């Protein structure tokens, strides 16, 4: 890759994936957590088939959000613990390249978990989730979630209460993504008309673009003392 900026983004992404596939700390933890949440919903709503069908979209996004927070917290604290965040910040490049490297690696972790959780959920609840619309919503929702999450995790990792602080900061800010993703997912599962779903898809798309652009502009200030 000739462009130094893209080369740095790729280097951070590749490094995160290589470290994860060697240590196997993050994805298994996210996965176990996600499957447990799905199982808890399953047993809690076992007797009520109608309710189970109605809450599918909500249950899925609660699962993704909780598992995603776990991943975001871990991936940034791993950088902080060995002082590696300083190592990244010492590199002579536009620091937003670090943000985008982290964004893509966290997105990859979240998508891997989702690719496993969606079939598991389909099997348990006997609902067909292999719907192109739902998969598009999952992608757009994950992009928005991770875009905000990486930015906030970079801030919260500098504090002593980082494990508690990240969800407290993240969930209010990411609420529009969750609401839009739940509404759009529910719409696709209920086979609603596309005109009813498209406002939610537009909201997801705009949110993703705004927060990626905002992170590109402010990441340098967020990570500097």
């Amino acid at each position, binding site marked *: 890759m000739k462009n130094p900026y893209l080369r740095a983004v790729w280097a951070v992404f590749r490094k995160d994936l290589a*470290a994860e596939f*060697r*240590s196997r700390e993050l994805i298994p933890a996210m996965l176990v957590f996600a499957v447990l949440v799905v199982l808890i919903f399953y047993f809690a709503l076992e007797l009520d088939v109608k309710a189970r069908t109605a809450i599918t979209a909500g249950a899925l996004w609660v699962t993704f959000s909780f598992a995603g927070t776990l991943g975001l917290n871990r991936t940034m604290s791993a950088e902080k613990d060995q002082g590696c965040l*300083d190592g990244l910040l*010492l590199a*002579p*490049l536009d620091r937003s390249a670090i943000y985008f490297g982290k964004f893509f690696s966290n997105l990859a972790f979240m998508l891997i978990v989702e690719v496993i959780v969606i079939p598991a959920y389909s099997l348990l609840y006997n609902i067909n989730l292999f719907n192109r619309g739902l998969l598009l919503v999952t992608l757009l929702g994950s992009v928005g979630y991770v875009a905000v999450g990486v930015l906030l995790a970079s801030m919260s990792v500098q504090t002593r209460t980082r494990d508690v602080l990240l969800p407290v900061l993240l969930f209010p800010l990411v609420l529009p993504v969750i609401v839009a993703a739940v509404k759009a997912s529910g719409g696709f599962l209920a086979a609603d008309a596309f005109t009813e779903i498209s406002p939610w898809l537009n909201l997801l798309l705009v949110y993703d673009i705004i927060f990626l652009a905002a992170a590109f502009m402010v990441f340098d200030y967020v990570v500097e003392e």
Partner: protein
Amino acid sequence: MIEVTKLVKRFGAKTILRGLNFTVQPGEFVALLGPNGAGKTTFLRILASLSRPSLGVVRIAGYNLPAQAAAVRRRLGVVSHQPLLYGDLTAAENLAFYADLYDLPQPARRIEEVLRLVGLANRHRDLVRTFSRGMQQRLAIARAVLHNPEVMLFDEPYTGLDQDASEMLDTVLKNVATQGPHAVVMTSHDLARAENLATRFDVLSRGQIVASATPAQLGSNNLLTFYKQALEKAA
């Protein structure tokens, strides 16, 4: 090479550095001494562009901080008491990662060179988490010199090292300092090692440089006497 004028750093209501003036010429190895809480690490973090000055002028290799931070970082090598390395990557993978971040041409050759310089050429395929603290610190030095920096900053590099590892680090630091016209700034509580390596000793107390001397100016006094006298005067 390094020019700092009237540097002030505040964290909220607390002032850490109070109008600090400091210069380092090419080829100088400055040992920055001082008690805990004097502001040594804060000062080094400002020089490393990891922290913004509240007031004052900081110029490194002709570039201003924080305005030209990326240009400064290209000319800086930093070693702290933490290795800034990834335990789940091998020594060579860690260096290759940093080579990508620094956009180095021919990274493989340079990685081989620096691994030889710190005596880890035969361990390049081992995971860093299997390294001893001393080996990690040697690899941290390899990471810091990978891009041939003009200015080296060492923040307590001997922390946590045993006697053998410290002696090995002495040799590595001497090798690094003599490779090219580096300016080196090192903070340390180990006065004996600082006396052995540095060409100038500056004492930092309460956010200011309160005394400065070269080995020749120490005369019959040893560094410990000079250091104690400097702190007594400043108190």
